[in-house]
């Protein structure tokens, strides 16, 4: 059995302990894998155009794959069947878990909340340092999955008293139809939704999502096209375009930058990045510099030294960014939120746990400066 399934088992144990085991019973999961492949049970993709000779062009992400009949796009979870493009992962999460929202990480969005977190198979990039490659780089038929329609998932979220649903672990853009329908239903009953994404998406679907989502976290993987080409198999510019669009759409978003030694930690690159954020997005966008650990195809690169993260934070603060964090370093002062005006400690964190939250009605309790974010 593959590692991805073991991973799921671990999730299963967690879920079972939390009372979700009825969803994860083995026969139902196996059945879900097979039924996912039958055309009459699939959901048609929403962003594509039909071309002659049963080809299609996918318009969901910047790859704009042109796909022959019977073939799949780069993400591996969308298939052309007789000239109609289908998503193979609608209602088929392979992972279901309850996480603190800080794990995403989202630090200015309902701190201390629990997020019912889901993923499907597939991803539209191919990062050499992926932490979740066992699901992101798999095709749907290679993983056990659940049968979980949007309404059922939202009902489950309410039953578990989670205020947030997070689309995470793999790249949620590749299950956009499912994500959209869940978010729309969740919004109707007062449940928030957050997309944890690489931002590799076309403007139209992103705008549509902004209408129903509550928050977005973008993994900005570097500030160079070279890095995106060599280590991500993607492009930087579309991600920057997505960030600008999120700003225009006025949805709450935060940025994570995984600092990889020797690959994207050059101080000039970091400085350019921070200046760009300041100019295009404003000083109040939280920026998280997180620590890299050797993963997947990048096992020959050491973990990020703490000094590198500290230096990155300093560069960002010098550029005028107000909320700069370090991640994957439990206990580091860079995990805390401080007032941008008077430097008062506002939220004290220990890893994913909130030790203290002093923000009142979205303001610093000392100087009353509004702190950007979604606080309730």
């Amino acid at each position, binding site marked *: *059995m*593959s*590692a991805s399934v073991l991973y799921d088992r671990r999730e299963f144990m967690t879920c079972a302990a939390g009372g979700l085991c009825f969803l994860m019973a083995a026969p139902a999961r196996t059945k879900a894998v097979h039924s996912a*492949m039958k055309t009459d049970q699939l959901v048609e993709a929403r962003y594509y155009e039909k071309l002659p*000779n*049963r*080809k299609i062009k996918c318009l969901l992400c910047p790859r704009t*794959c*042109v796909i*022959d*009949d*019977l*073939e*799949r*796009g*780069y*993400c*591996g979870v969308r298939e052309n069947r007789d000239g109609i493009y289908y998503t193979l992962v609608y209602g088929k999460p392979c992972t279901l878990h309850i996480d603190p929202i800080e794990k995403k990480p989202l630090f200015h969005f309902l701190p201390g909340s629990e997020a019912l977190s889901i993923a499907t198979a597939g991803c539209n990039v*191919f990062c050499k340092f992926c932490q979740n490659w066992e699901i992101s*780089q*798999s*095709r749907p*038929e*290679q993983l056990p999955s659940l049968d979980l329609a949007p309404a059922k998932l939202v009902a489950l979220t309410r039953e578990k008293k989670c205020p947030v649903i997070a689309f995470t672990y793999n790249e949620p853009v590749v299950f956009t139809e499912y994500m959209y329908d869940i978010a729309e239903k969740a919004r109707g009953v007062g449940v928030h939704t957050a997309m944890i994404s690489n931002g590799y998406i076309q403007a139209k679907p992103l705008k549509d999502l902004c209408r129903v989502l509550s928050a977005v976290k973008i993994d900005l993987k570097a500030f160079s096209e070279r890095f995106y080409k060599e280590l991500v*198999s993607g492009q930087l510019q579309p991600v920057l375009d997505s960030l600008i669009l999120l700003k225009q759409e006025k949805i709450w978003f935060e940025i994570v930058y995984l600092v990889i030694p020797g690959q994207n930690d050059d101080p000039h690159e970091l400085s350019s990045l921070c200046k760009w954020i300041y100019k295009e997005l404003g000083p109040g966008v939280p920026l998280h510099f997180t620590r890299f650990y050797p993963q*997947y*195809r990048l096992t020959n690169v050491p973990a990020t030294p703490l000094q590198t993260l500290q230096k990155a934070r300093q560069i960002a603060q010098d550029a005028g960014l107000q909320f700069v964090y370090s991640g994957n370093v439990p206990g580091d002062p860079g995990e805390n939120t401080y007032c941008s005006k008077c430097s008062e400690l506002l939220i004290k964190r220990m890893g994913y746990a909130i030790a203290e939250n002093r923000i009142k009605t979205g303001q610093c309790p000392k100087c009353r400066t509004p702190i950007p974010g979604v606080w309730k």
Partner: protein
Amino acid sequence: MSISRRDFIKDHAALAVGATLTPLALQDLFAAPALTARVVQANLPSAKSGAEADHVLRALDRGMEALLQMPGKEAWAEIVSPRDIVGLKVSCLAGKYFSTHSSLVQAIITRLVSIGLKPGQIIIWDRLNMDLQGAGFTLNQNPQQALCYGNDAAGYSQALYEYQSACSRLSRIVTDHCTAIINLPVLKDHGIVGISAGLKNFFGAIDNPNKYHDSCGDPYVADVNMIPALRSKVRLTICDAITAQYEGGPPFMRQWNWPMRSLLLAKDMVALDRICWTIIENKRSENNLPTLRDAGRYPSYIHTAALRGLGTDDLQKIEVIDV
């Protein structure tokens, strides 16, 4: 009647040279570079329909004898031993009208059994059970007959296999079930990588072929085939060109499909693909279609495979025998 290997070569050498598709004058033979690869085109008699089992079996026998330059049983024994577990990698994506013919698979099974393999030592496989069934194969786990199942039933290796640009999990059929593989692709145009024949067929052995379609599959197709755990098991390629397709692939497109009525056999998959590419280009030209280069899908991965050392793509060094 049994023929010894020496007798066979003596009797057939002249015929083989005489039947070469690109016949050379005797003086040219001495000047020409040494031939390092052999591709045999074994033709079926023209017929109105189908891949009749007896015609296919006879073409297979002629092809094997010409390829290995020895009589049938000895030829097969050169490829596999009676102790091998032999995977027959078919190509079933395009469904019942355009997949590896079951009559070819059956003919190979007949010959493998004739050299001492039990049916249960033979596995017919492709990516998905559903694809195999769609192409007319019957799934089977009973060792009284040849086994038949997809990667989805067998699963993928837990380990990642890497070779330069390629990083994939391999089908457990490759890593755990088989000791030898006979590659049975179909010959077709391919909308992304130009042509699909021997090398491309092993995208069906990995978990993530969708990741390898950029830049017309170059160098990914070559690199997947370089993965030692796969490469070390591939013994022979028999390309099913009973029908072939010069445009609109990989799905079946009736208007561009033609009855080529041949099997193409080679031990050198790069040489085979190079010849397949020529066949597709010629057919496209006959039908006033642009070259694959002009169509934006030049199959440069074939040359990359040659550069990697997988075989030769130099037409001067490929002997093509028509039988």
